[in-house]
């Protein structure tokens, strides 16, 4: 057997002049999101804390919310209100949502006190806030989609509030079809996309380093230089 002598004529090797959109996307992903960043074997030393678990637990809760929601949507309100298994899955859906928001709030606390928007991570923070806000609206549309008196009570009381914001003309909480469609399709898909972007941004930039106090020497030097350039001093 002889080794292949040349590259087949049909193979084109993209060079620096590759100006296709596919090439641009590929170069962007290779530069910003190599597999070693997407699936790292180990995390930095400072990630060894339970505080970093809150985000993952929130995502896990969301998986349970979506899974139980798919089952509920498949069988319908008669099942989730009457049948024993339906009531169990309905409760699982409800309590998964409670855990989702509980751990999302804890994740928010942890990242806030770490100032996790540092070092170019502002987009990660902003998208995270968007995920939280969209999830809140998703939860609200869920409360008015229960198909019981509780849902009617919430919807009728919320109608005045929504009208007061001016959104009542296109966001009608008394329209079950609109609320249910938003709850099971539009908003979960939006949450999923925004959450995927959030996680991608975390993987691209990495986990933010903890805030470290300045070393004693640095602090003294900073104080000295700071006094020389303070307001009122000579430029």
């Amino acid at each position, binding site marked *: 057997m002889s080794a292949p002598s040349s590259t087949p004529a049909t193979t084109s090797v993209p060079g620096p002049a590759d100006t296709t959109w596919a090439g641009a996307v590929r170069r962007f992903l290779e530069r910003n999101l190599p597999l070693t960043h997407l699936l790292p074997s180990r995390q930095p030393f400072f990630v060894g*804390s*339970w505080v970093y678990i809150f985000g993952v637990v929130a995502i896990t809760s969301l998986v349970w919310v979506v899974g139980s929601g798919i089952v509920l949507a498949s069988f319908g309100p008669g099942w989730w209100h009457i049948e024993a298994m339906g009531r169990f899955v309905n409760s699982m859906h409800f309590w998964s949502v409670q855990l989702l928001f509980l751990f999302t*709030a804890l994740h928010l606390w942890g990242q806030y006190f770490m100032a996790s928007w540092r070092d170019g991570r502002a987009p990660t923070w902003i998208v995270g806030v968007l995920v939280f806000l969209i999830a809140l609206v998703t939860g609200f549309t869920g409360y008015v989609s229960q198909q019981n008196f509780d849902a009617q009570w919430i919807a009728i009381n919320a109608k005045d509030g929504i009208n007061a914001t001016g959104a009542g003309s296109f966001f009608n909480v008394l329209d079950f079809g609109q609320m249910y469609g938003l709850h099971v399709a539009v908003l979960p898909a939006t949450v999923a996309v925004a959450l995927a972007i959030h996680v991608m941004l975390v993987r691209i930039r990495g986990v933010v380093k903890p805030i470290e106090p300045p070393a004693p020497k640095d602090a003294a030097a900073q104080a000295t230089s700071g006094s020389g350039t303070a307001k009122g001093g000579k430029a």
Partner: protein
Amino acid sequence: MDTPATYLELGFIVISVPNLLVILTMVGIFIAALLAPFPGHHAIEEDGDVRPE
């Protein structure tokens, strides 16, 4: 389940006992997460997911 929750009033702060319990639980979990040792926490500082700033 059919009875209204008990509310606590401290001046302008009005909160139901269930809500207060949830908030206290969250604070407790947060403090525990800060203080509890993390299993398998490796002692080498300069390894892992290192990337340029």
